[in-house]
């Protein structure tokens, strides 16, 4: 128990706990007038939160060695999960085949896949050549390996199709390549290639109609306010009507009237905006930023490149996901289905985010330098 307490980093723990609690309250508010099972969302989200916190505490005490040992299996399992979604085991929700139905439970493998990708990329990019004999040691060889590792889950997610998660997986890869010290020339080349691929995809009509529609709506939400632009317009109205101090918890009429679809999941930030106002919404953003800042601090002081990459990758993931989510609510990004870390309703996302927080803490707790490396350094 003391080991657990020592491992916990209050600068991550406290904001995470506050955000989880806020998430539970906002999910409650957003589903308080639901027609069916009003309280069910609340109790389920409380359960997810508690399970997630337990997972976080457990992971905080994991040593770097076991973490590293689990990286590759986790990656493989995640890829299997993503592949399983495409089999008859998968369940389609909102046009995307992103769910695995096991018994009565539904599970979204793309959420833990993000964390698994971080671990796998860290293993690839952060392995000293001596540590991992099977992997190429020089950065020049690591880049293609990393791209290969990333390509599998990105490809599987694109098949669902889930543009948002694919974007986040790509962003994680890019961020970790940056942190890994990949030369800028190569990165520029990669960016150009990605842009080219995107243009080609557009040109060849590879995107699904609803994805194209979302992108067009982002360019001009008022073009079709009742149709595809409805979500964007209503989200802005809901956030905007909060003002500085908000309407008060459980008192938002837009929220109570369910004007924003998916307001308990991807659009949970509209509830914060309307009911807690600029003050409350900004506080939530600051808390999120606080976790990320702390995560980067941990990364900076990490004992090994692997751990630095794990921490940095988690930060990149959460930062990009938060920015895309809040950005789409505020009309800065096209509407893609990604949850807001720690706040949105959902078991897979909540558990994965808290697990990530736990891993951040474990990186911090295990600050002793890697023996081999320290020997080499001295």
């Amino acid at each position: 128990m003391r080991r657990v307490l020592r491992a916990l980093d209050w600068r991550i723990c406290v904001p995470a706990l506050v955000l989880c609690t806020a998430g539970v309250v906002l999910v409650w508010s957003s589903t308080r007038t639901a027609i069916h099972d009003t309280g069910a969302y609340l109790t389920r989200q409380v359960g997810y939160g508690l399970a997630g916190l337990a997972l976080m505490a457990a992971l905080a005490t994991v040593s770097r060695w076991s973490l590293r040992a689990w990286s590759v299996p986790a990656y493989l399992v995640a890829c299997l999960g993503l592949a399983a979604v495409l089999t008859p085991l998968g369940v389609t929700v909102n046009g995307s085949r992103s769910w695995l139905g096991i018994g009565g439970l539904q599970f979204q493998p793309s959420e833990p896949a993000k964390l698994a990708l971080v671990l796998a990329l860290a293993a690839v990019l952060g392995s000293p050549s001596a540590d991992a004999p099977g992997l190429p040691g020089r950065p020049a060889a690591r880049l293609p390996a990393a791209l290969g590792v990333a390509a599998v889950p990105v490809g599987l997610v694109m098949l669902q199709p889930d543009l948002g998660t694919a974007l986040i997986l790509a962003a994680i890869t890019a961020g970790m390549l940056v942190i890994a010290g990949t030369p800028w020339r190569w990165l520029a080349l990669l960016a150009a290639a990605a842009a080219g691929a995107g243009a080609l995809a557009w040109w060849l009509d590879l995107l699904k109609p609803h994805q194209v529609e979302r992108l067009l709506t982002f360019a001009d939400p008022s073009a079709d306010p009742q149709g595809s632009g409805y979500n964007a317009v209503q989200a802005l109205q809901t956030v905007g009507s909060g003002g500085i101090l908000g309407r008060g918890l459980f008192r938002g009429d837009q929220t109570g009237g369910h004007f924003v679809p998916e307001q308990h999941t991807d659009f949970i930030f509209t509830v914060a905006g309307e009911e807690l106002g600029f003050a409350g919404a900004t506080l939530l953003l600051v808390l999120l930023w606080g976790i990320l800042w702390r995560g980067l601090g941990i990364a900076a002081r990490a004992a090994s490149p692997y751990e630095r990459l794990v921490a940095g990758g988690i930060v990149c993931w959460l930062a990009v996901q938060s920015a895309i989510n809040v950005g789409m609510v505020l009309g800065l990004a096209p509407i893609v289905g990604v949850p807001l870390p720690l706040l949105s309703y959902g078991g897979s996302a909540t558990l994965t985010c808290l697990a990530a927080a736990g891993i951040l803490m474990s990186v911090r707790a295990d600050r002793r330098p890697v023996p081999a490396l320290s020997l080499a350094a001295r």
Partner: protein
Amino acid sequence: MRSRIVLVQLLVTCLFFVLVGRLWQVQVVDGDRYARAASADHERHVVVQPVRGRIVDDRGRPLVRNRTAMTISIDRTVLTRLPDGGREVLGRLARLLGTSREEIETRIRPCDGPARKDCWAGSPYQPIPVAEAVDEKIAFQIVERPDRYPGVVAEPQPVRDYPNGELAAHVLGYVAPDDRSPGQSAPVGRDGLEAVYDAELRGTPGGRRLVVDAAGRVVRTLSEQPATPGATLVTSIDSRIQRASERALKRAVEKARGRGRPADQAAAVVLDARTGRVVALAALPTYDPTVWVGGIDPDEYARLTSKEGGPLLSRAIQGQWAPGSTWKVTSVAAAVADGRPLHGSYPCPGHYRVGDRDFRNFRGIGYGHISLRRALEVSCDTIFYRFAYEMWRENPRRHPMVKMARAFGFGRPTGVDLPGEAAGHLPKGDWELPGYAANFAIGQGEVLVTPLQLARAYAALANGGKVFAPRIAKRIVAADGRVLREVKPPVEGRLPISRRALEYIRAGLRDVTRSGTAAGAFAGFPLDEHPIAGKTGTAEVFGKEDTSWFASFDKRYAVVVMVAQGGGGGETAAPAAAEIWKAIHRVGGR
């Protein structure tokens, strides 16, 4: 690698600054705009219609009141969420109501422009009434099977109720949906008292500000202002006398028809001569005002408004006929005012030559030299031909008889508080040929009067010369009992006749019911107890049967009866008037 972490720190921080900045822009800078747009989406204003005021007679007996009837409304927000947009439900409802689905769809289609009849201009979130005053058996099929009729609401709504059936239909008028803003407001008064006192009867609508959810369901009520019910209109109509008048008219018409007269139109007016208030106002043909409740069907409307004999017209104020001999009171007054001795003796030959034309008495009978009283009693024409001819010679540009007729209030609307009143017609009195003047003197030719005009002229004889603008409304009483307004008939003018002359004319007219042209009609009436003065009129109409008139009064009331194509005044109108008088004084069998 360290520097890369710093770079990511910078990027992440910038990203959050951008988000907070955008949040500030959306919530603080543009917050009001978004809040207004949001309110427009989740706030609804629903108008609460007030209950329309009642119309009661002078004893407080209701003439028009309200009853609750089942109204079928459609909630479009529910309908549009059905898989087929509600087509099946509307089809089912149309079969139940005996109409077509297209018709219902037309009524509930929201207007995308100016309000028209074939679309719904009200709030799309308010249930749209598609059938009013529906039979309860039909309504309960909807109430009991909500699963078969989703989005269809059957609820009780107040509609106009006429406890006395057709009684005073023309006076009361009717209500119908407002053409200018169908659906927006309660039905408005379109004729009769309902139209004239619409503002008072209508009341003030209340409102409810509701918060609805995205599906249009009401979440809660923000504020509620109750509707103020319409005021009660107290009239001077005595429903007992009104009923007697209508019955007398019907009987007179039936009897006249029995004698072979067409008797196609009729009217009766009872005024309180002392106050100028209308006690009864009856007209035939009439109609049942309940046809308007729940919307009139087109065939019925066509029948009501057909040009010939359309029963919507109130013959008492909108019909105009030559007054015949009832007119002679104005001629006597003009002759006396022109300087002829009141107690003089005047020749009443069988024929009188005016210019180059011979004018005859009724059946050419002469009475020798008679007084003016006797002239009224036996309805001598030649005396008046002479007066008219003499006056024409003295004053060919402005005939004094026309001037006197104007003083009696003819030639212009009486100003009664009913819509669409006719003005009657008076010639200018600058005749080139004296024959016109002679005809005018006996109420023939160019002169046209409404029964109400004649009644107020006779009321002026009764009350000492006051010509009233008659009123039906007496007072307007708010729903809480406060008197909002007293209505008093204004005095429009005074007869330019001396008291003596007035008394003389009255005495002459009293003889009419005792021994004159109406003696038969008033046989058996207790004239000693209730002396009635009156004058018969039989006006010739080219190509038609004569118009039968009887104008009468006592100390308090003035009663005028007119039966178009009803024959002689003593034969048809006078007995009907006698019947009304019996009702007024509660004599006889009833």
